[in-house]
């Protein structure tokens, strides 16, 4: 019995971390149709911000939940002003530019901090179910994932800001006619997306190896999830993250980690073949 609970927790862990790692990308991609290939490096910057500030004596929770998103949000602001704003509506160019940007960020971080970095220990600790051990951090991640979901939904659905953002997303020209400044909306969307990605980076920092190239391990799955989720920012990402996260973890448990990965990618191929618009293109049409 206990083992099923543990596996359920693993699945929960897989889903919530995947959701958190994708949300920032989904915001940027869903709202602005900019493909940010430097997404993995934003995660890495978040992790570095957390680790460096925590090792400098900042409380680990503050480092994770405040320093990381703030720092990456600021980086996002600079990047949007200097680079991304020239690329709206130029999909292929934006891919090339952000790919170059990702290499640049890796290079800068390697130059400053070298190829490895001391990590931070995982806070909280473990608890046992029967004779099995699991980590409170898993539950914490799930809590944050739910919190972020509620927050994004609340802002988008019930605030004026969200209304403007949704209007710009649907029809920028019309929104501009009605007095909204799309440039400013895009800018703040990019910054929010970057900050959310930074938060995800901060949250994975205590449970992953910190290297300048660590983003590479996340970026493929993040894109797959966002594309598999389709146009609806929240419901799409959530459903795709649940699907892929669960397939990966259950697959890895019952077979081997190698097949766990293979299964995820196979699922993604089949999904895109059957639902070319992603999950939300079929099931949650018009939702957030």
């Amino acid at each position, binding site marked *: 019995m206990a083992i099923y609970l543990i596996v359920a927790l693993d699945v929960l*862990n897989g889903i919530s971390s995947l959701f958190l790692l994708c949300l920032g990308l989904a915001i940027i991609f869903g709202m602005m149709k900019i493909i940010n290939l430097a997404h993995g490096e934003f995660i890495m910057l978040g992790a570095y911000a957390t680790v460096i500030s925590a090792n400098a004596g900042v409380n680990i929770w503050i480092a994770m939940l405040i320093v990381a998103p703030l720092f990456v949000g600021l980086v996002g602001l600079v990047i949007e002003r200097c680079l991304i704003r020239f690329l709206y509506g130029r999909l292929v160019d934006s891919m090339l530019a952000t790919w170059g940007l990702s290499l640049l960020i890796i290079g800068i971080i390697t130059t400053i901090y070298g190829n490895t970095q*001391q990590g931070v220990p995982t806070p909280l600790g473990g608890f046992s179910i029967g004779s*099995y*051990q699991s980590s409170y951090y898993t539950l914490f991640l799930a809590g944050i994932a739910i919190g972020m979901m509620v927050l994004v939904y609340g802002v988008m659905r019930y605030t004026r800001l969200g209304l403007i953002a949704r209007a710009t997303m649907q029809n920028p020209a019309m929104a501009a006619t009605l007095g909204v400044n799309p440039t400013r909306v895009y800018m703040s969307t990019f910054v929010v997306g970057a900050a959310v990605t930074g938060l995800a980076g901060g949250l994975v920092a205590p449970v*992953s*190896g*910190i290297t300048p190239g660590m983003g590479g391990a996340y970026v493929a799955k993040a894109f797959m999830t966002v594309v598999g989720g389709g146009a609806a920012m929240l419901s799409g990402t959530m459903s795709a993250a649940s699907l892929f996260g669960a397939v990966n973890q259950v697959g890895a448990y019952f077979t081997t*980690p*190698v097949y766990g990965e293979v299964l995820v990618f196979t699922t993604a191929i089949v999904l895109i073949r059957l639902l070319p618009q992603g999950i939300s293109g079929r099931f949650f049409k018009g939702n957030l």
Partner: protein
Amino acid sequence: MPFSRRRFLRHSALATTTLIAAPAVFRSGAFGAEKPIVVGSLHDQSGPIAASGTPMVYALQLAVDEINAGGGLLGRPLKVIHYDTQSNIQMYSQFAQQLAVKDKVDVVHGGITSASREAVRPTFDRFKVLYFYNVLYEGGVCDRNTFCTGTTPAQTVEKLVPSAMKKAGKKAYIIAADYNYGQITAKWMTKYVKDNGGEVLSTDFFPLDVTNFGTTISKIQAAKPDLILSALVGGNHTAFYRQWTSAGMKGKIPIASTTFGLVNEPTTLDAAESDSILGAYGYFEELATPASKSFVEKIKKAHPDSPYVSELAACTYEGAMLWAEGVKKAASIDRMKVIEALESGIAFDGPSGKVSLDKPTHHTTRNAFLAEVKDRKWSVLESYSDVKPADTASVCDLVKNPTDTKQYIINL
């Protein structure tokens, strides 16, 4: 004269080229009459493997500087031509050609992963350039033009597994990286576990980009092993040790590893995450012999920010020194004469102790050490002197087949 954009670009391009070319021009003029002996170096100084490659470059440079300070070899100074291979196999192939054809080097030290070694070894065979591979690996390379100075599984895994089993128990669970090193090392682990009367409950392989080890940790708990043997590789895989500790498993099941701590895992992980992990290598920075201390001191003095000085750096230094001994004995830089001299039982007392080249395998007989992580440092528990490369010796005999150039996959 109008100052146009085009003119500005042309001038700055010219100035940049001059600046970049200047050191090369000055340096090539500086040596004067005595033509230097050229040592090629292929090591990764950027990309994922850079933390391994950087100290190796330092060690090679140290060896060459020391030889030059002692008057060089055969009255000629040594010169290193180094290329940063950027953790990219394509760069290895390209620069290997360049070293052999354009730079016409007399010997090459380099290669880190087994994949990179196999990319450059045929090139050096073809162009008849003597090649030293100074890294621990899975064993089995049998090539008269190549000398492998690092440890092989018979020298380290063979010591690690029984001592870990003695401490922990007979049931082992193997986790390893999913490429040739991990796959072959897992086979060796299985063999030694069985040889010592134990049992392997399960073997799991992980692609290098796996970051979530939650299910593995659950599976390990369900299997209830006495011991975990790890050959996980790379930054992403260090996540395993973190997640293991955060699940509260640390200390409940001991871990022994053939890869942990080769780069600088003990310093990047928290003490709580790395304490009491067992490892076995041909060298540890913490070895307290005078030779080892002065070696580490020299590297750290020249490069205060150097990553951990591991077996990789020590073997590179010893490899370069062994080659120098060979050249001295041959009294020539001719490739065949140097190979014959190196086969005549050359030995060198390096940071890890006495290292001698084995004629039939072109591997080394060297000391091996068993250590445990304590407070983010290795503490050496035991040392084994003059361990032979028995694995490669069981398949390779260059005395009988001098034209062999294969890497044997050792059947277990």
